[in-house]
């Protein structure tokens, strides 16, 4: 049996309100390429962060070359030969390739100054391993994205790394560049004796280069070190998404003959959306599904006027409109946006429950000379706070003292109180306990039934299939397909996956 170079046994990791990993196992064989798969939120990133010393597991062991280790900082991980090649580039763009490669161990000359000749000689060696025929004096900012990535791998190798973590390495590469990368990866595994953990949403890549697969689902292992030969695409998809959990489902309805409240015609945005066509009817829930970075949140921000739409039409209730700002969106068109990032964009953490839940209604309930009191506000929002069963000692409690679920309820309350016609709900249940999650699902369905039109952005497949009437799949700032949701999990999820992975 081949030796293991990295082993994680029964690792648990909890964050406030969510169990990110429970008894997760991971075994990496020396000289292998191992795929780590799972949906968004399945615990992949947490596991990677444990391996790289950013987080520490609550329970469970981490073994490197068969001896138990404790990684307190990312630096510890580097010392034990673990390197990550991130989605975001870790190179300093204004430094040269050579400087970047040698940054942790810059060669000095007799006067203690940096020896640039030596940098060139040493870095050349690592660049050659990666088949990079570039001058070490080239500035990183002058390289293509693909070459930057290869430089990053070269840097990891120069740090004597024996375990490389590649997180979505091909997300910004062309097929040709990806192909080239895979050849090089196979080569360094063979020649340099490194082992690779490969994280990707593109299943065909997994089949083309990986030896073994570990799938995480809800923080648990759906499979551990399964040989790639024993799997096929269908089995793998099932391992990733198949779950028994019964979730709230909206009744199937036919919205097509209801009023069209929002229509996007070939919308193009300043930040890169192209050919966006979208129709939203009264009382309809339209889902936007896609991977992180597909442009869903950004599309929502175009709709509320934060990002600019450069061409195409936005029609609201049949009339062409321009939305300049969230203020116009709310006051003129009654469109609201519940942010995915409730701590940064949703709530004012240093303010109390009352102010947070009423921020959208102050202008509406003010009397002459802008007169507004806590009492008037309380009359307006307390019914909603009670309806949503927000657990808070009083309306004057600081929002940061509430649990994640209750905070999320408050960011919903403020839009309920505002009484919007169109509500864009972005990842409503991330990091939220199961009970509140089910409650919020019910609430979203009720809202739709009482006439609100909803655009639901979610990376949670069961949530999406449970709630949405229609699902638009987004990829690379475009809509890659539309799925009519009949709430049949297997069929719909397979249809969505087709649009994402092809």
């Amino acid at each position, binding site marked *: 049996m081949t030796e293991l170079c990295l082993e994680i046994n029964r690792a648990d990791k909890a964050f406030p309100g969510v169990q990110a990993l429970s008894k997760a196992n991971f075994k990496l064989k020396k000289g292998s390429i191992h795929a780590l798969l799972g949906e968004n939120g399945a615990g992949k990133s947490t596991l990677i962060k444990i391996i790289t010393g950013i987080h520490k597991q609550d329970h469970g062991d981490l073994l490197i070359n068969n001896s138990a280790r404790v990684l307190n900082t990312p630096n510890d991980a580097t010392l034990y030969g673990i390197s990550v090649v991130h989605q975001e580039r870790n190179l300093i763009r204004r430094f040269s390739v050579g400087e970047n490669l040698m940054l942790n161990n810059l060669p000095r000359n007799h006067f203690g100054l940096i020896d640039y000749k030596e940098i060139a000689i040493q870095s050349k060696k690592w660049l050659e391993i990666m088949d990079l025929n570039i001058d070490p004096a080239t500035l990183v900012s002058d390289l293509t994205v693909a070459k930057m990535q290869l430089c990053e791998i070269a840097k990891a190798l120069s740090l004597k790394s024996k375990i490389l973590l590649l997180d979505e390495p091909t997300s910004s590469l062309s097929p040709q560049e990806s192909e080239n990368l895979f050849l090089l990866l196979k080569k360094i595994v063979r020649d340099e004796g490194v082992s690779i953990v490969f994280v990707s949403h593109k299943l065909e890549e997994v089949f083309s280069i990986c030896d073994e697969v570990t799938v995480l689902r809800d923080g648990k292992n759906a499979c551990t070190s399964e040989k790639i030969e024993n799997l096929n695409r269908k089995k793998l998809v099932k391992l990733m998404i198949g779950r028994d959990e019964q979730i709230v489902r909206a009744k199937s309805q036919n919205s097509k003959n209801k009023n069209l409240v929002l229509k996007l015609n070939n919308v193009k945005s300043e930040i890169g959306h192209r050919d966006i066509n979208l129709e939203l009817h009264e009382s309809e829930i339209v889902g936007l599904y896609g991977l992180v970075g597909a442009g869903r949140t950004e599309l929502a921000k175009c709709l509320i006027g934060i990002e600019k739409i450069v061409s195409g039409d936005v029609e609201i209730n049949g009339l062409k409109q321009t939305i300049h700002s*969230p203020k116009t969106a709310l006051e003129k068109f009654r469109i609201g946006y519940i942010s995915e990032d409730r701590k940064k964009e*949703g*709530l004012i953490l240093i303010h109390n429950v009352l102010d947070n839940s009423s921020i959208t209604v*102050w202008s509406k309930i003010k009397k002459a000379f*802008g007169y507004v009191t806590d009492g008037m506000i309380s*009359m307006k929002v307390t019914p909603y706070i009670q309806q949503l069963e927000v657990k808070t000692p009083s309306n*004057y409690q*600081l929002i940061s003292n509430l649990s994640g679920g209750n905070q999320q309820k408050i960011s919903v309350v403020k839009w309920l109180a505002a009484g919007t016609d169109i509500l864009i709900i972005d990842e409503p249940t991330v990091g939220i306990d199961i009970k509140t999650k089910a409650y919020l699902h019910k609430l979203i369905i009720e809202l739709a039934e009482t006439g609100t039109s909803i655009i639901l952005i979610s990376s949670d497949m069961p949530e999406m299939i449970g709630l949405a009437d229609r699902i638009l799949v987004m990829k690379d700032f475009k809509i890659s397909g539309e799925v009519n949701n009949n709430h049949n999990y297997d069929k719909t999820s397979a249809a969505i996956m087709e649009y994402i992975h092809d």
Partner: protein
Amino acid sequence: MTKKLPNFMFTNQFGLFCIVIIFVIIFSSITDGFTSRFNIYALSRVVAIDIMIGLAMMVVILTGGLNLALGAIGVCAAMFGGWCMETMGIPVIPSIFLILGMGSFLGYINGVITVKTGVHSFIVTLATMSIYFGLMTMLTEAEAFRRLPASFTDFGSIKLFNKYVSPLLIISVTACLTLFYLFKFTDIGRKLIAAGANPDAAELSGISVNTMFIYCHMLSGFLGAVAAIMLTTRIGAAIPSMAGQLGMDWLLPAFLAPVIGGTLLSGGKLSVFGTMLGAILVTLITNGLYLIDVGEFWIRFFLGIILLIAVILDKTREHFTLKSVIVS
């Protein structure tokens, strides 16, 4: 509807109030003349202006920013007023409106530049401080306006309440009450605070954050102009050096009052009455130290130390006071 009033004993303002009382007791027992009618009257004239300057800074700190140009705006407004009344012969009341308009306008420029460029107001107002003051010096050729209408300058020497109190203090207290009302009981006040606390969240909740920030800078300029009018009536003339080089003499009291008073430096929480108490405390300490005769440099030394302590408290304050109070 259950409304729990915060226990005032735990508020920052109550603590400040106690410190003020302690200093009053100390200074009145170790110095002669601290409680004399003359000294109290003099104190009331000084503290009135310090309160106004503190409020002017407070409304920009609310946005998480600073207004270094505050003193320069004050001097420019005062000199503009002197020109209106002395050179142009405009009557006092219209001149006062023009002065307030000038202060607001200079604040507006600060606000617009800050918002449009996205540069921190520290840099923007550092630049405009120099620009405003420089322009003013060029236009006036650094000549003071010393022949202001008597009805204007006399106001500064009126004595009220058995000759103990200057009417200037009444203006400052009225300003405090008005600002408290604005922030506590109006939608615009709440929006100003929300925008300062978390601009992203406020913007997404339908508040025009840029407009709010511009309002704050305008309000700062307006209050600075009020302080300038008060200072002009007190000294009886509009003088280019009335607030020191570039108006920088105002900066220390301007920061001390709100920061001691409990206005959060990162924005989003403010205390109008805390600023008032802070200004009172600073004036008391300065005045008391003068009477003890410790010398100008020691007073600056102590005020610097107090500012540092107040800033450190700003970081730790959260742990021992009621956090849920947003306006006080």
